[in-house]
């Protein structure tokens, strides 16, 4: 590989007290790739996602984003996080700000974009995710699906190099899952580098370049989606797929 991968994790370990939540994680995500992380709950997949922008610090090992090692806490870390979009399971929209203000806050504060430019770009993003007509409402007035689409727009407003999705549809009512997955699928097709922690097998099949399967803090399989779903190699993956695909 000639250019540095967008995300590189080398020998990453992390404990939560006694629990060894990440065990010797080695993972590379090339620019433009979409990687879906699957695994049973408690397997460490959310933690893995959160270490990439250092919302969770690691005990040992190195993490690089676009060739740059994750800085310690401080201004440099804030600068790196500005280039890494993140979407949370519980949306985490700023509750005291309108949808448009949610999208324009970081471009104005971090990138020093003028209010007029930030709003213009923000409205365009809200149109792209289909909720421009909700721009003056507060997050609590929107449905879960609309909130999550607003959260995606908020992350995109920083023009990130990579997007992290931490179970973006797990807190949604079933009928709202697809509106969020559609936005994510479009994003993937447009060439965004994405790491997606999810239980949505359909999305993994449709949009992922690779599937990473985790269990007990380890990466057990790292495969092409078709190969993973039709012929998983490990017993743990077979067991996991058996449980979720037959219900």
């Amino acid at each position, binding site marked *: 590989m000639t250019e540095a991968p967008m995300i590189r994790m080398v020998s990453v370990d992390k404990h939560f007290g006694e629990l060894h939540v990440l065990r010797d994680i080695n993972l590379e995500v090339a620019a433009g790739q979409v990687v879906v992380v699957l695994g049973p709950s408690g397997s460490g997949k959310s933690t893995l996602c959160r270490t990439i*922008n250092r*919302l969770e610090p690691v005990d040992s090992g190195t993490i690089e984003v676009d060739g740059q090692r994750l800085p310690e*806490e401080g*201004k440099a870390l*804030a*600068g790196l*996080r*500005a*280039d*890494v*979009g*993140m979407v*949370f399971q*519980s949306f*985490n*929209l*700023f*509750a*005291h700000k309108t949808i448009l203000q949610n999208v324009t*806050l*970081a471009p104005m*504060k*971090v990138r020093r974009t003028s209010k007029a430019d930030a709003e213009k770009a923000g409205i365009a993003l809200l149109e792209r995710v289909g909720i421009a007509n909700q721009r003056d409402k*507060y997050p*609590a007035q929107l449905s879960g699906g609309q909130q999550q689409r607003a*959260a995606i727009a*908020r*992350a995109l407003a*920083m023009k990130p190099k990579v997007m992290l999705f931490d179970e973006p549809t797990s807190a949604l009512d079933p009928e709202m899952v697809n509106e969020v997955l559609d936005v994510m699928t479009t994003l993937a097709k447009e060439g965004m580098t994405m790491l997606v922690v999810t239980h949505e097998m359909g999305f993994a099949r449709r949009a992922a370049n690779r599937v990473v399967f985790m269990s007990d803090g380890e990466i057990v399989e790292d495969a092409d989606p078709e190969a993973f779903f039709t012929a998983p190699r490990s017993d743990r993956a077979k067991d996991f797929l058996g449980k979720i695909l037959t219900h």
Partner: protein
Amino acid sequence: MDALIAEFPRFVSGFLGTLRLCLFAAIGALLLGTLLAAFRVSPVPPLRWVGTSWVTVFRNSPLVVVLFLFAFGLPQVGVVFPTFGGNAFFWPGVAGLSAYTAAFVCEAVRSGINSVPAGQAEAARAVGLTFQQTLGAVVLPQALRTVVPPLGSVMIAMIKNSAIVGAFGVTGELFSVDGALTAAGYSALSSLGGVAIAYLAITIPAGIGLGWLERKIEVKR
């Protein structure tokens, strides 16, 4: 109540003196207390240490001791306060009351910060806001709603505590009016009764104002 009527101008001037003292002390305590709360939740250990030490020392010391230290202790180590209208004890009184009240403001603000869901600060950090920006633009505005009631209690306690400042020599504030009137021959009951009414004339409207503020913040969002 005869003292209140006969010596009304004295009460008015004491009332204004207390207002002035409390206004300066409230500004000082709110600014310092909020800063200390920011220190206490900061990722920088020495700042956390400063915040925690301040609260530990000032919340656990009697106000009288703090005030005497500011008025008589600090000048001995070279900290000299300017006089205020010829009164040497005004600024030490304001500073001591601010330093003491800031410890309580800090804890009220910190409890407000803790009431904001952790996801809010995480999302702010994730989009690249610094610690100060996260606190100033996302966490503190949301903490405000929960902070107003306890902060109101702290401010009302401070107004009442300002009487102690009067007792040790900030002449012209409300509590010192009692001394002057007793010296002039009024009964303790009548002069203290007037003083109590004058304090209530500050604290009760303050409480009503806080209730109004609380409702105003609530409807927003």
